[in-house]
């Protein structure tokens, strides 16, 4: 088994930027991407803020070479996966076994919604089949894999909000087991009426820009985007023309087994995910320099995650922040997007602010970081992704 797994390339698109460079600029300038709904024809327009990617499907089609009529989930995926692959130097991978492990939560739902409105009253003829042909989560992955010319190992993971943390985790293990040499891993999700209405029924959407880990937080904002990392083995890393960003040194997946949507008050699942990831990396809590929080901004998540952090880190807390205050909660993409943030944190020695934080949570002795910090000594970053169904995953990124 290969001992180390390296991150050789990164790619990201979200409401704060269409590329890694844009994204870094927005993070440094405290520019959140949260605003009114403009693209979806929803009754929640004007009331619920979201974090939309600024490009239209037509823009994305032109930039990716994919038809703009396909699911936005695939278009976003292609943007970020292509950026990651090119960043790593895709030509360097010729002759190597390359895989694509992606994640999403609702596949081609944006198009299925169009199909369904006509289908419901007329199941035999209503709705255009081309709008439902890529409904499956796996279809979205294949549209991108085919465009990238990857066919060795292709799969898709869907574990709600922890989906793409699990795809990175799985991709790393494929390399360690020598099943593959190079894996593009991460996830994607586009905003859909299905998810906006679903989260709305749960009454956990903030009608203003979200305030994760604030005592007076009101809920989350949904976002869209995609984030991918290119994972390579030690052997492959050595032959690449440029240095890798960092190593993926630890990962763990645990289940909270408490409730279908709510997290346990003790943060059982999140505690186990973080603790086991540390053990797997051979690290102590005190080795962690920055935690990229799951930090959705809901009362329940931030309480549960905070409790788990307190149990594990008290009394010495590393710096931490929720970048969902910038990007909104991008669901199946969040673990991938935040993995890119973790890689950049290490390679650029930076820590991101937790925006709009005014009142520290009374329950905890720690305060998330409010400023963009440069020149930080960052050896290890912990990234949390917790989801519905109790699926909790933590990843640890470390300097090379």
């Amino acid at each position, binding site marked *: 088994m290969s001992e180390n797994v390296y991150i050789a390339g990164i790619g990201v698109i979200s409401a704060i930027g269409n590329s890694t460079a844009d994204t870094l600029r927005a993070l440094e300038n405290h520019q959140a991407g949260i605003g009114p709904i403009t693209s979806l024809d929803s009754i929640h327009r004007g009331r619920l803020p979201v974090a939309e990617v600024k490009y239209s499907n037509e823009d994305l089609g032109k930039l990716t070479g994919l038809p703009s009529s396909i699911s936005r989930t695939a278009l976003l995926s292609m943007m970020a996966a292509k950026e990651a692959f090119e960043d790593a130097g895709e030509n360097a991978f010729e002759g190597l076994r390359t895989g694509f492990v992606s994640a999403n939560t609702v596949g081609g739902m944006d198009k299925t*919604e169009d199909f369904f409105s006509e289908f419901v009253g007329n199941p035999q003829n209503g709705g255009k089949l081309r709008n439902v042909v890529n409904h499956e989560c796996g279809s979205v992955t294949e549209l991108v894999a085919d465009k990238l010319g990857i066919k060795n190992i292709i799969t898709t993971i869907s574990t709600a909000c922890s989906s793409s943390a699990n795809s990175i985790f799985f991709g790393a293990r494929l390399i360690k087991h020598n099943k593959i040499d190079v894996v593009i891993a991460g996830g994607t999700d586009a905003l859909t009426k299905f998810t906006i209405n*679903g989260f709305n*029924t749960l009454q956990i959407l903030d009608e203003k820009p979200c305030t994760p880990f604030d005592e007076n937080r009101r809920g989350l904002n949904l976002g869209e985007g995609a984030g991918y990392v290119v994972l390579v083995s030690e052997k492959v890393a050595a032959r690449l023309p440029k240095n890798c960003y960092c190593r993926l040194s630890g990962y763990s997946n645990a289940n909270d087994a408490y409730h279908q949507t709510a997290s346990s008050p003790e943060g059982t699942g999140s505690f186990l995910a973080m603790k086991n990831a540390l053990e797997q990396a051979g690290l102590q809590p005190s080795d962690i320099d920055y935690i990229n929080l799951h930090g959705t901004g809901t009362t329940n998540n931030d309480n549960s995650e905070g409790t788990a952090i307190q149990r594990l880190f008290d009394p010495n807390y590393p710096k931490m922040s929720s970048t969902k205050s910038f990007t909104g909660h991008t669901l199946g993409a969040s673990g991938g997007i935040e993995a890119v943030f973790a890689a950049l944190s290490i390679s650029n020695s930076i820590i991101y602010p937790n925006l709009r934080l005014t009142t520290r949570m009374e329950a905890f002795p720690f305060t998330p970081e409010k400023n963009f910090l440069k020149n930080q000594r960052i050896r290890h970053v912990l990234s949390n992704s917790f989801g519905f169904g109790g699926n909790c995953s933590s990843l640890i990124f470390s300097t090379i």
Partner: protein
Amino acid sequence: MRMYIGATGNISPQHTLGQSSLPAELAEYNTSRLKCIEPDYSKLIDVKYIRRMSRIIKMGVAAALRCLKDAGIDNPDAIITGTAYGCLEDTGIFLQKMVQNKEEMLTPTAFIQSTHNTIGAQIALLLKCNGYNNTFVHRGFSFESALLDANMLLEEKAVNNVLIGGVDELTDFSFDVLSRFGLFKERVTSNLDLYKTPSRGSIAGEGASFFLLKNQPSSNDHAVVEAVSTIYKPFDSNEIKEGIQSFLKEQLISITDIDIVITGRNGDEEGDKIYDNLKATTFGQASIINYKFLCGEYPTSSAFALWLAAGIVRNGSMPHVFINPEKKQVKHILIYNHYQMIHHSLMLVSAC
């Protein structure tokens, strides 16, 4: 890594739950839609949870719990599910209400249970299982990906056993949509005669097949999964042939060692050509049997094939519904299936 099958739990269009091999009495269907034969769930799941569960969740949870019961295990070390479509019924309910009510007056239950990881999550919740939990949703590779994950986990020695399942449901909506894509035959006299008159399309199926896989053998094991492999969008039939040959070679076995090949023949004249081709060129003298006349076509049907293979090697011979002229002892079974000619998968199953 050899994976020992300690127990199985299978809900399918046949009477398979609680059976380790195919029962003599086969269920017959006269339509192109095969439906799972569902058990009395109250015997397997706490009644207060059943009411809220959709059909696929009940099927998945019941098959999983029955598998664990037969394995004599209260709590597995890990739970991995493969499902191409996920929880379609709840997805359809929420979508329909959203469209018809114009996004007003919606309730959360269907949305909450529509996420693809709900089956694995509900199993964990009922068992209070805090271990590794993952869900693969990759079309005709969903179950194979889950097997690959299980294989690595068992090899990592992070766990000693894994509860793994392949689950997919048909709903009225999905049957209508898939029918419009021409996937199913318009007229079916009997699923048992599926292969008699080849025509366009197959018969629609569904199922929930769970397995307890272990990295150590024990006396009651059903079978061993030696290896699993996939081929995505092969360029031509040669790529499939080479894929099969190198798969067997990696397992240090030759086609002459294979007693039975279980193929995914589904009655669709176009898709079945590759099975004819491989029979003539690649499968040698092995007996060839098919399974989709029993369970129908669906993306995770290879989980049903694995259950069938495990039963055959455990009993040492084929069920009487298959013709087996030689009556020889069955030691090795190769499963080759393809889903819509895109996803090709191979599994090698051996006697313990």
